[in-house]
């Protein structure tokens, strides 16, 4: 068999499956090379995906709306939407709740789905809201200490202890990181 594009023998037999019905091609090595390298692939950088998509969120919003959205900050970790858009990384688990309206379209864009159907932790945690609350309280405590608002810091410390003591954090065995407090030992296994 001769090459379909020149007189040399056809040594490559290509079946093109993309686009409509399969097409057969019988070509020599040179023409096969030419054919196969015709469409240069775009550089794929999966790592850049979140950043790109995060920036895409800007599309479809007026500058004013976007500026307002950018300033919104998660009450738990303090990350602003602007910061997330720029770095493509979220600040804490609560961001998924707080920025749900903005994140859901992004998540659908990436995964095509919005419902987890895989593995679940065996122990029923009920809700991890109390754990999330610890993130906020510890942040506020740090700020209070830095601002020398000791009365406020003391109240916050009590609140943290209360949540930690209630067993809501049985998992992490987290102790208050303020010096001088008793460090409850994590449950031994």
């Amino acid at each position: 068999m001769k090459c379909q594009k020149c007189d040399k023998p056809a040594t490559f037999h290509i079946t093109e499956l993309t686009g409509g019905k399969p097409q057969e091609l019988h070509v020599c090595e040179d023409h096969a090379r030419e054919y196969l390298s015709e469409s240069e692939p775009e550089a794929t950088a999966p790592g850049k995906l979140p950043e790109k998509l995060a920036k895409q969120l800007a599309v479809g919003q007026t500058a004013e709306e976007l500026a307002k959205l950018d300033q919104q900050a998660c009450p738990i970790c303090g990350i602003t939407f602007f910061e997330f858009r720029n770095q493509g990384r979220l600040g804490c688990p609560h961001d998924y709740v707080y920025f749900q309206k903005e994140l859901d379209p992004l998540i659908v864009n990436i995964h095509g789905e919005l419902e987890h159907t895989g593995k679940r932790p065996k122990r029923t945690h009920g809700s991890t809201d109390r754990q999330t609350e610890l993130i906020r309280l510890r942040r506020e405590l740090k700020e209070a200490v830095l601002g020398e608002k000791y009365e406020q810091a003391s109240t916050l410390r009590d609140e943290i202890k209360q949540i930690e003591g209630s067993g809501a954090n049985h998992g992490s065995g987290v102790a208050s990181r303020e010096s001088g407090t008793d460090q409850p030992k994590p449950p031994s296994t």
Partner: protein
Amino acid sequence: MELEELARSCGEWLRGSGPESDIVISSRIRLARNLADFPFISRATTADRAEIERILRDKVTRVRDGAELNYVDVNRLEAIDRQFLFERQLISRELAEGQGARGVAIDPQERGSLMINEEDHLRIQVMQSGLDLQTAWEKINRIDDLLEDQITYAFNERLGYLTACPTNVGTGMRVSVMLHLPALVITRQIDKLFRSLQKISLAVRGLYGEGSQAMGDFYQISNQITLGRSETDLIKQVGDLVPTIIEYERKAREFLVRESHENLHDRVSRAYGILRTAQTISSEETMHLLSSVRMGVNLGLIRDLEIPTLNQLFIYTQPAHLQKLSGVELDTSDRNIERARFLRSRLNKSDSNGNKN
């Protein structure tokens, strides 16, 4: 743990055994997990990070699923040792090049590792030689269960396991299979293959993950989607496709043997010749030539070499490994000389003593 000891050993994924090991190097699964009561890494303070490391270090080193794990405080490691663990695929580039409190617990047989304070608080990975995703899943699922008994993971009823980047949310799972596809590269079919894989949401990366070039014709195929499908489905999606890719590669090899046997044999022999005689050689050239030799061994064109030896050479000739093995720090040009010397000594067994610089 002594890294020097590790440098001389040979990890699970380099073993060169297991199903389809002429083409499939290794099967790997990783899970991304976060503590529920700490901010993600980007918002974690220095104190948070130290505390996360303390908590997780305590938990992961208690996981007794087989041998005891070795914990390495990555923050205290020299740059060369971090690079070494990265080349060995025991830590990611992010963990190697990051800052602050972070660490890794390593299985002594290198069948897996647990990274702390990477992009997520915890990244668990399990590796198997050859094509064996099922075993990898059973192992990693068990480790995850053991940890979950002691840790409250950030989990949401609707979205599943919550991760720092929305690209990992849901299962937090990345299933990847590393393949050696030299014949598809030679016959220039590789780009086509990648384009069709991307259409079905599979990602293709080089030997060293995101952004790395496909050195030595090694490619990792992995799932892009992590939400809305079960772990079993995701494993099936990648696992079902691999035999097809293997088939393509085998056909391309058959084609080369049939249609241009002399060219192929010449290419393989020249590659082997250069590796056995070069006096200075870069890492890139080494990878490129080793790739041809590896295929030559699989096709029976070279008979005095074993696949595990070759798999090792791919890793041992990387910059940090080379320096670890020789025991001295070397600049690029000295490394190239040392690499050539190392290759000569490994590939010319009969005259390895008389073959001095």
